[in-house]
């Protein structure tokens, strides 16, 4: 069966999208848009490769295994990401950072979201996506500035084409849509990765962003990390859709589910999504099944709303040990490689400890400097008021 919109598409849309998809995959648009019957999974939790039959592939949902070089590079980032998460949590406990929403357990999603992009592409992360931001190349200490508390953001979004880590849920998805739209108007081949969590799919901006991206036929990948909880509220209280990926078809875009702790499957699915988007498929929605191993933040107590047995169950599906077994069995990971990767991770952890251990003095008058491009007379007045206070404090010392 082939579905058509029963209204005319805007001029900006690709009108023969249906024919295009039929040629590409030999399936109907509806089959293309609906996710595969099962989540895409390539490697078992014990690290063994699933057979072609076990992978449960269906026409249009067949994914080639990523190259060895890509897998090794991604694994290295995975190890670094885990080390960063644990280092940051330690720094919070030591009082060096105010808060850190850890992505421990979700590092495969973090790494894949950044690694599938090219240099000219953009990434729009949430507050929990620090590892993705770093994987994109942003300086780790600059990433953590927001959590140290000296300013709301520490890196230049334009340098690595990474939006500021966004706190209000799903609002950044619309910024991703705007960046893609501007690029498209200029004829640039920019793909934009827009990240959010499962709870965020209940927000109105999730709907508006997906609909805008679809109507304007923009190359945006909406990447939902379904880590099962929005602070304490389980997914069953957010949505009764067959899956979050199924929401895609309602907007006229393709959706896919993937094992979010299987880095091999993630890279395969994300790489293809980026390729399709770059080739003009319009937006895509990918739901990754993963688990937030730690509490929402250090201020949260996860034992109040989820059983230890559930956490233990997910511990067995850890993305890092799974990838390590797989690559070791494949003969790609030997002692030397393990040693080199561990050293890399330790170097980044040291960089974080040293960078965040430094007590950088804050500049109170910066409060007024950046509200507008040029301070208004009122802000100048207030700045002088505070400067006077500071001078009096200083002379009283």
């Amino acid at each position: 069966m082939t579905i058509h919109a029963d209204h005319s598409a805007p001029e900006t849309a690709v009108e023969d999208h249906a024919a295009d998809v039929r040629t590409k995959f030999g399936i109907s648009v509806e089959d293309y848009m609906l996710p595969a019957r099962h989540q895409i999974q390539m490697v078992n939790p014990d690290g063994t490769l699933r057979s072609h039959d076990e992978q449960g592939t269906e026409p249009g949902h067949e994914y080639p295994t990523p190259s060895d070089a890509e897998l090794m590079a991604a694994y290295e980032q995975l190890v670094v990401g885990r080390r960063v998460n644990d280092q940051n949590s330690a720094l919070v406990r030591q009082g060096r950072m105010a808060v850190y929403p850890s992505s421990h357990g979700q590092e495969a999603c973090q790494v894949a979201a950044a690694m599938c992009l090219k240099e000219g592409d953009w990434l729009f992360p949430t507050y929990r996506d620090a590892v993705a931001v770093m994987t994109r190349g942003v300086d780790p200490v600059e990433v953590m500035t927001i959590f140290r508390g000296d300013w709301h953001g520490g890196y230049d979004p334009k340098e690595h084409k990474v939006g500021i880590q966004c706190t209000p849920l799903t609002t950044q998805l619309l910024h991703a849509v705007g960046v893609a739209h501007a690029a498209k108007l200029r004829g640039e081949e920019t793909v934009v990765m827009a990240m959010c969590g499962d709870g965020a799919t209940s927000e109105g901006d999730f709907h508006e962003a997906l609909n805008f991206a679809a109507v304007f036929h923009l190359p945006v990948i909406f990447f939902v990390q379904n880590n099962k909880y929005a602070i304490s509220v389980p997914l069953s209280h957010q949505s009764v859709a067959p899956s979050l990926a199924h929401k895609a078809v309602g907007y006229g875009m393709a959706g896919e589910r993937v094992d979010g702790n299987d880095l091999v499957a993630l890279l395969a699915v994300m790489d293809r999504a980026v390729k399709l988007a770059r080739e003009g498929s319009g937006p895509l929605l990918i739901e990754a099944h993963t688990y937030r191993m730690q509490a929402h933040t250090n201020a949260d107590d996860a034992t109040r709303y989820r059983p230890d047995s559930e956490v233990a169950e997910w511990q067995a599906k850890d993305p890092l040990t799974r990838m390590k077994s797989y690559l070791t069995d494949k003969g790609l990971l030997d002692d030397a490689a393990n040693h080199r990767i561990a050293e890399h991770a330790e170097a980044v952890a040291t960089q974080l400890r040293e960078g965040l251990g430094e007590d950088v003095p804050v500049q109170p008058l910066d409060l007024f400097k950046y509200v507008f491009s040029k301070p208004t007379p009122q802000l100048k007045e207030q700045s002088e008021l505070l400067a006077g206070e500071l001078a009096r404090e200083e002379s009283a010392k």
Partner: protein
Amino acid sequence: MTVTTNANVSAATANAAASAAATAEASGPQSLTMAKALNTAMADAMRADPSVLVFGEDVGMLGGVFRITDGLMAEFGEQRCFDTPLAESGIVGMAVGMAINGMRPVIEMQFDAFAYPAFEQIVSHVAKMHNRTKGKLKMPMVIRVPYAGGIGGVEHHCDSSESYYAHTAGLKVYTPATVADGYRMLREAIDSDDPVMFMEPKKLYWSKDQVDLGALRAEHDAGTSTEGRAAVARPGTDATLIAYGPSVPTALAAAAAAAEEGRSLEVIDVRTLVPFDDETVCASVRKTGRAVVIAEAHGFASVSSEIVARVQERAFHFLAAPILRVTGFDVPFPSPKLEHYYLPSVDRILDAVDDLQWED
């Protein structure tokens, strides 16, 4: 002609187009509505800069429900002036992304109260992005909001929402009261690297004036600025009426009526609520010693209360009487048959002026 947004459209080509379009029009003063002045400002800005885009609900083929974007899609094509899905947060949020990626969006919220779904994007991102990134990301966008009453509109079509935006750090808030200011302030808003809430008094859309577009264009090209500069709309000596946007013509009518009774009222048109021109406003009050602030919005916790506070902080010893206010009452905006009881009127303004403790 159609100007595409491709980077290969040089500024020179765009400027040539602007000059051609400008010279095609009659030079010298002509009768113009504020609607046409705003429309011309957008068209001129789009000719001058290919990164200026106009989008929103019904702004394309229809030219906007108030026809302010009339003809822009025809001249600049569907890529630069287009209709969006009906979702205000989406419109503003997408504009944020476009501003991040090199565009200068000029977006329309169809009516004041329909902008509320976009409040989070405006307050949490449009207003804060520059500060959050220490100026690395600028937000050169204009959010046009037809606002206030006086047109017999039904519920949700007549709100005076300027105080919400003026209260938010990081937003500039402009509101023109004359046809000429419609042109010059919208051009300046589009040129601004900071986000501007451009509040358009919808009852003044069809107000007319003799305007010399050629002179206004020359003024713009010379870099003349109205930001933070209130205008003396009518000079006077006995008391100051401080008004903005839709209340300026009402204040002028009150001043004309007062003149017949032998009282000389100065009328100040604030023009930009943020940044606010303390200097001009306070200079006038110091001169006259008496002031009434006029605004359609509810008085409680509003721009009008801010103006009273600022003036008494700076000109207390020059005051012969407390500063009074004539504002909308603290009730939801009334239905069409009741709105004239709510809106500041000439009579209410004259009554307030009478109450400024004249006999001592």
